[in-house]
């Protein structure tokens, strides 16, 4: 067994020289003072202003907010796909750039973005085939692509091409692809947004099952309050234009969370709290308060 779950001090003790360890603190992701302004001919639009929060190792954080709250921009900055104008991002003690270079960042975009000429299995193997130098510096993933795919219920379609699968199955392949190379952190940008409600529910719980098995650090972006509450340990509610952290709503529901969790009073209470925060995020910035 590899040691993604080991406490950091233990990781440091058993770490071999020259090997990259998953950070030396209990902080998985630290976002501090991140700001971003997009400039165009029509002027400047402030997308994010002074966004700060910390995702502890092994925690599932969800960002939720109205359109224009810069959720995806923030995720892209964390993923190293976009430069922040102010502030910085530290992933397990490394800069975002280095984390990518060391293949510590698993990214699941809005669309599955599978390569149509590759089979399901070949698509999931893709991250293992690029930037091999980074792979050599770390332990081999604890689970093979085949194992991950069969956990996701895709064991029978390994040799199919993406076009032969439904939208929900394609999205599951995209998630499997992000898990396949055992990154330290998973960044998911509304991965279920294009799916119908029933498929979304199914995928939510499959994602939870997969997550329960190794408790990866996750930053998940969504529009759906229910989705946020079902999945998360903490919900980061963003306000719009510029995107700021409106509130951090902890989700203390017990894990593992089955499908019945959505029927509990506690669930509804948290859902209500998130909705209230979102409503005040829509209003004037001065109206919103932290919770």
């Amino acid at each position, binding site marked *: 067994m590899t040691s993604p779950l080991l406490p950091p001090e233990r990781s440091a003790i058993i770490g071999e020289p020259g090997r990259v360890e998953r950070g030396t603190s209990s902080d998985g992701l630290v976002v501090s003072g991140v700001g971003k302004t997009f400039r165009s001919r029509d002027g400047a639009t402030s997308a994010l202003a002074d966004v700060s929060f910390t995702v502890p190792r092994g925690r599932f954080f969800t960002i939720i907010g109205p359109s224009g709250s810069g959720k995806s921009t923030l995720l892209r900055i964390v993923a190293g*796909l976009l430069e922040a104008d102010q502030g910085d991002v530290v992933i397990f003690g490394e800069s975002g750039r280095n984390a990518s270079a060391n293949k510590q960042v698993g990214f699941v975009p809005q669309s599955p973005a599978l390569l149509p000429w590759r089979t399901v299995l070949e698509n999931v193997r893709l991250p293992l085939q*690029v930037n091999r130098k980074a792979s050599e510096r770390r332990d081999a993933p604890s689970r093979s692509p085949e194992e991950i795919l069969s956990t996701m219920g895709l064991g029978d379609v390994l040799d199919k091409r993406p076009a032969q699968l439904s939208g929900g199955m394609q999205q599951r392949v995209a998630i499997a692809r992000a898990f396949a190379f055992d990154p330290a952190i998973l960044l998911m940008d509304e991965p279920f947004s294009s799916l119908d409600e029933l498929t979304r529910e199914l995928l939510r719980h499959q994602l939870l099952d997969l997550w329960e098995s190794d408790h990866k650090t996750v930053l998940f972006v969504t529009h759906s309050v229910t989705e946020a509450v079902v999945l998360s340990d903490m919900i980061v509610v963003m306000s719009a234009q510029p995107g700021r952290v409106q509130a951090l709503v902890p989700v203390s529901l017990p894990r593992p969370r089955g499908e019945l969790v959505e029927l509990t009073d506690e669930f509804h209470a948290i859902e209500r709290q998130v909705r209230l925060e979102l409503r005040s995020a829509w209003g004037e910035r001065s109206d919103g308060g932290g919770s």
Partner: protein
Amino acid sequence: MSPRRPRLSGLRSNVWLPPLVAFGLLVLVWQLVATHEPPQTVATVPATLAALGDRPGLFWHDTLVTLQEMAVGLGASFVVAFTLAVVMVHVRVVERAIMPLAVVLNVTPVIAYAQGLVILFGFGIAPRYVVTGIIVFFPFLVNSLIGLRSVDREALDVLRTLDASRWEVLWRLRLPSSLPFLFAAGRICVPLAITGAVVAEFTTTGASAGLGSLIVVASGYGQVAVIYAAILVLAVLGLVLTLGVTLLERRLLSWHPSSS
């Protein structure tokens, strides 16, 4: 289950019958016109086939020469155009510098400067390669460029978060994404290359081989049947090569929506 792609032999009659009838009519009209015109202006169908049958070796040799000109011209042009497109995708300033030149090359009729190229490169086979290469260069360049750029942006994001190198992005994403465009270019460029090779042969009859040269020589001797036979061989050559590109495309692009 994926649907089985129809093989050519398995095509239904409503697929192959209409073009066959149209071809039959074309041959019929040709024959009718030829029988009503003096033999020194239009060759009849049997005369054309007889010209082919009389000297199969000659036609075979000239076909190989024209084919060689096409292969070298197409191949070299593709390598240069694709390499240039790869550079252009990564270095914008190269695109800005080269594209206008390529456009000028494309809009100037090749037949106008073919003579100049012959004088420059001598009367051998070299100017034929150059003319054939130039005529297919622009479609190759533009399609390569569009193809290399037409990548799924989110797939590119996934590769970037893995810190994939430019080479890995090119090999694993850009190149396969560009294949449908390259095949589209291939289907345009094969007939263009035949035109290029024949035009070059018209202007370089000094090197007296190739189907275009054969047409020029035969017209000098008033051998109308040989001219018609050479045209027929050129048409068949174009058809076979285009069919080859299409079959290769089906094989390599079975994943692409265009092939279903």
